[in-house]
């Protein structure tokens, strides 16, 4: 079994493991940020790292690891493809979700904008220029 694993498989697996390690690092960083940052609009930064760095990067890594794991049989391409699709979905959906949430939070004043120097969106809304 050991000799059957080709060099290409090893390269794919090691590359994937590097990506998963980076993703896990980002994940912990984002979680600490989520816990320590003072308010909602600052925590959005941590959420970006958590969604893209903590989910997109490890999912690509999983796709590479699965492509190299010949002990999983032919179904490894199933894992590989599905993980890649999930990665693309996360890349598309996570930023839009945060955008909608942040816009609604700003509009309804559910969270305070702080630290604030100038808030053009609020001024526009007072003048009635946004819908």
């Amino acid at each position, binding site marked *: 079994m050991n000799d059957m694993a080709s060099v290409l498989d090893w390269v794919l697996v090691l590359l994937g493991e590097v990506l998963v390690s980076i993703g896990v690092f980002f994940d912990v960083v984002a979680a600490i940020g989520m816990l320590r940052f003072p308010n909602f609009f600052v925590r959005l930064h941590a959420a970006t790292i958590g969604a893209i760095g903590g989910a997109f990067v490890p999912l690509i890594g999983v796709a590479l690891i699965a492509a190299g794991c010949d002990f999983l049989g032919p179904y490894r391409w199933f894992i590989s493809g599905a993980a890649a699709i999930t990665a693309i*979905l996360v890349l*598309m*959906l996570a930023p*839009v979700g945060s*955008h*909608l949430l942040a*816009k609604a939070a700003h509009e309804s004043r559910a969270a305070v904008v702080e630290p604030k120097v100038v808030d053009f969106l609020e001024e526009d809304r007072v003048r009635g220029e946004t*819908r």
Partner: protein
Amino acid sequence: MNLLLYYVLMALCSLGSVIAVVFAIIERDLLKAVLFSAIQSTLYAFLYYLLMAPDIVLTYIPVSVGLYPAVILFLIKKTERFENVETKRSVLLSSLVLTITFVIVSAAVIAGRGIGPIPTPDVRFLAAWYLGTTFNPSIQLVSAMAPEGVTSIVWDYRGLDTVFETAVLFLAIIASVALMRGIEHKGVYDELKHGMSLIGKTVTKIVVPLIIGVGISIALHGHLTPGGGFQGGSALAVAPLLVLVIFSKYFFDKVGFTKGKALAIRSSGLLGVGLTSFAIVIAALFARSGAYILQNQPRVGAPIGFPWKGIDGVLLGGSLLSFNACEAMAVCAGFVILFLLLAIPEEYVRKVLAQGGEHEH
């Protein structure tokens, strides 16, 4: 494979769900309670994954993360947000400590003294029978000839149960429709006035076809990989709900998708389930042989069955494929009817109700 790690994951996951449930029950702000129950749902879904039930995960996530919070949010927006009770922080903390201690101590007692080794290596005889015959060409006269154990049980071994469960599902939907009878609402869709921001609309245009694709593939591959009619139907129902929330109800009026059309789709799905369950009986009438209702593969005394293998050895799953497709249509359309009714503006409903009262009495 480290078994201890596997069980630690399960235990942590269920302890987390206990904490989320305590918060959800004690919390006075109902919107927060819904979000805490969404955390509980996510953790339960993870627990089902660890208990090796991918079919349940595929149903449970669309239902409890995609549909159920939306329904409760509709309800809170139409009624009131705060529960009329006092909650103290000390009550929350003490109940948290109490529940967690109770769980751990009682688990230690059970594991140490009482019921013996709980993770058994065997399943019951009935389960072994289902597993052994679900896809077994050597004993084709008792086999379901589909590799997915759960879908075989749902539509072959226990097909009659499922037909009656479908009936219960549609009675519940009909009862809800009856509560809102006589209320029709139409409006004109205005791209600028209705719905959410342009970014949300654009991405939803990309995501809705993806959701429909995932839903259809879950439904139609139900006999090969985890999935099936109920899973695919509840997954598909999220797409119209997203359109309803992001583009507004008036978008449905613009494209001409009304309650009546959804009702027609639902009825044709039900008709398909009925036809599939009688298909072999009808075929046997012409061939002058015996047959059973809800029959899938050939049985003793009933030699006609659905084909289970296509060209090049593609597995067709017999009647399961047709059942899954029809059931997905019916479940999805049934939920869409209810969401269309929920989305009617409250002011309009009250106006109609007031007028109707005057006319009748």
